[in-house]
């Protein structure tokens, strides 16, 4: 009996550790917007719609401008899989379908975290993502519900 309880305890501990590890990976980066964007929180579905380039305007009617790192970038892959719950190759094929059928535009590619910070801070309506260490007061952190 005691042995069973010990096993259960152990299993629970492993689960909790797993959750904690997951939370820590998620904590390393944030979705950021230009300070002029009024939204402070977004649903996951809206966020996915924005990064899929389907949702093109903020609720106040202004343009959304999406900034991304390259497909094989570590941060892009984490955001794609953990925050948006899609594989990076699926985002790429969604964008390609829009661009080459003319029914949408591609996100704007930046080459580094520095450029991401710079662009999101200076472009009206901009949204992107950054490592926590790179975030400063020039951008807003968006809460994802």
């Amino acid at each position: 009996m005691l042995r069973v309880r010990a096993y259960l305890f152990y299993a629970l501990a492993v689960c909790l550790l797993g959750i904690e590890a997951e939370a820590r990976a998620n904590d390393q980066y944030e979705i950021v917007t230009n300070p002029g964007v009024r939204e402070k929180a977004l649903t996951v579905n809206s966020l996915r719609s924005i990064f899929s380039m389907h949702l093109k305007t903020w609720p106040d009617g202004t343009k959304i401008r999406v900034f991304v790192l390259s497909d094989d970038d570590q941060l892009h892959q984490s955001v794609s899989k953990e925050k948006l719950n899609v594989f990076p190759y699926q985002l790429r094929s969604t964008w390609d379908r829009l661009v080459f059928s003319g029914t949408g535009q591609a996100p704007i590619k930046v080459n580094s975290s520095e450029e991401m910070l710079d662009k999101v801070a200076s472009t009206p309506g901009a949204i992107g993502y950054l490592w926590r260490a790179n975030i400063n007061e020039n951008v807003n952190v968006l809460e994802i519900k």
Partner: protein
Amino acid sequence: MKMLTCSRLSSLFVGTTRRITRRWVLLFLAGCFSAHAQEPNQTLKQSESGKPPVSLKISELPAQATESDSAKKKTGLVDTALNWFRRTDLPADLQIHGFASQAYITTSDNDVFGNSDKGGSFGFTEAGLNASVRPLPRLLLSAQVLSRRAGEGNTGMPRLDFGFLDYRIYSHEVNQFGIRVGRLKNPFGFYNETRDVAFTRPSIMLPQSIYFDRTRNLGLSSDSVQLYSDAAIFNLGTFSTQFGVTLPIVSDKDTENSLLAGLQKGQLNREVSYIGRGIFETNDKRLRLGVSGIWLNTAYDPNSRLNDQIGPGGLQFTPIFFSAQYNAERWTLTSEYALRHFKYDKNFGASPVNGLDFYGESYYFQGEYRFTPKWEGILRYDVLYTDRADRDGSDFVKRTNGVGVAHSRFAKDITVGLRWNVTPQFMLRAEYHHVNGTGWLSTLDNVRGSTHQHWDLFAIQGSYRF
């Protein structure tokens, strides 16, 4: 009014095509050189800036297939130009994209896109250039010029592939509703709208049973007014629909040849047609299910001065397509099925198509596997029956008194292929087809009676995009 705008647009494009082609050639050459002209210092600097800050431990992140950063950050002329585009604040969010692909095709028998059975051919070239602007938050204008060189049916003459305006009438979170007016890509199946862009295709040649290259101009784009919407289905996914009223493009030789059993003296007229598609996609984009349908009307206009034997008949082509796809991290399974209804009325006079009413059937199963982000493999089985009531073509031979060829009424194609994504912009691939039947071969490229039932096709392709 709409037509007028379109024809003006296309004449404008034809006028500038020569310049565009010249620029393209320059750009392409520059792209070739850029691979050699990179400076090692710059590469190093770029790769450093591309990495996450040092404070972060990579080991804490989920395991990823990481490739060496330096290999893919090439700084050539094209990249410099692209960076300029990106850095310069272009007015109204102007974006410019393009692609160029060249294939080499060799066949054991029968011709595909040129003289492929006589030692192979470089006869398959695709290039496109598109631009889009957003002058208003809800308004998008986009246009693409496409050049395609493939056999007798496509000479490489650039044409307006699409050119339209898109106005978003309603937008709230995932739910969208809007209207598009102009020349639009026909939305059917998973691949039709981007079928000329090698990067968006699973293989060099799309499954021909569904994406006929023979009647491609008919299926590819049309002048239309289209309504579209995205709607959230509970918390499961999104249902996207498109519905269009169109004037199909029926004026090219290949289409006429296929629909009227040979080149005729008169011409096919455009009549109002309809197209619609619905695709359900789960939130994680793993499962995609689609159904699309076309209601195409056209009529033959005989040439009375040339003593045309064929009457002014009408033709209805109403195919329906079912599509399904499952995407996992490493593999993707895709299957599509089409039932194609052809109905010719009884006014075609002496033509063999007079009064014909039959169903064609097509389907394929396809598996793609991503060994690494750079290497992908594909396996596919693709089947076409021109008339599902006559799968081996024997009735066709009887009906045409032995003139018709039985194996021209079906095709079963087994394909294996390999794709190498050399850089995000450049891709190479190779594929092998073993085909039983000649159902989808172009009758412009192949002389009737000279075709072989069992044949093989091998193709390699290089493609660049930006």
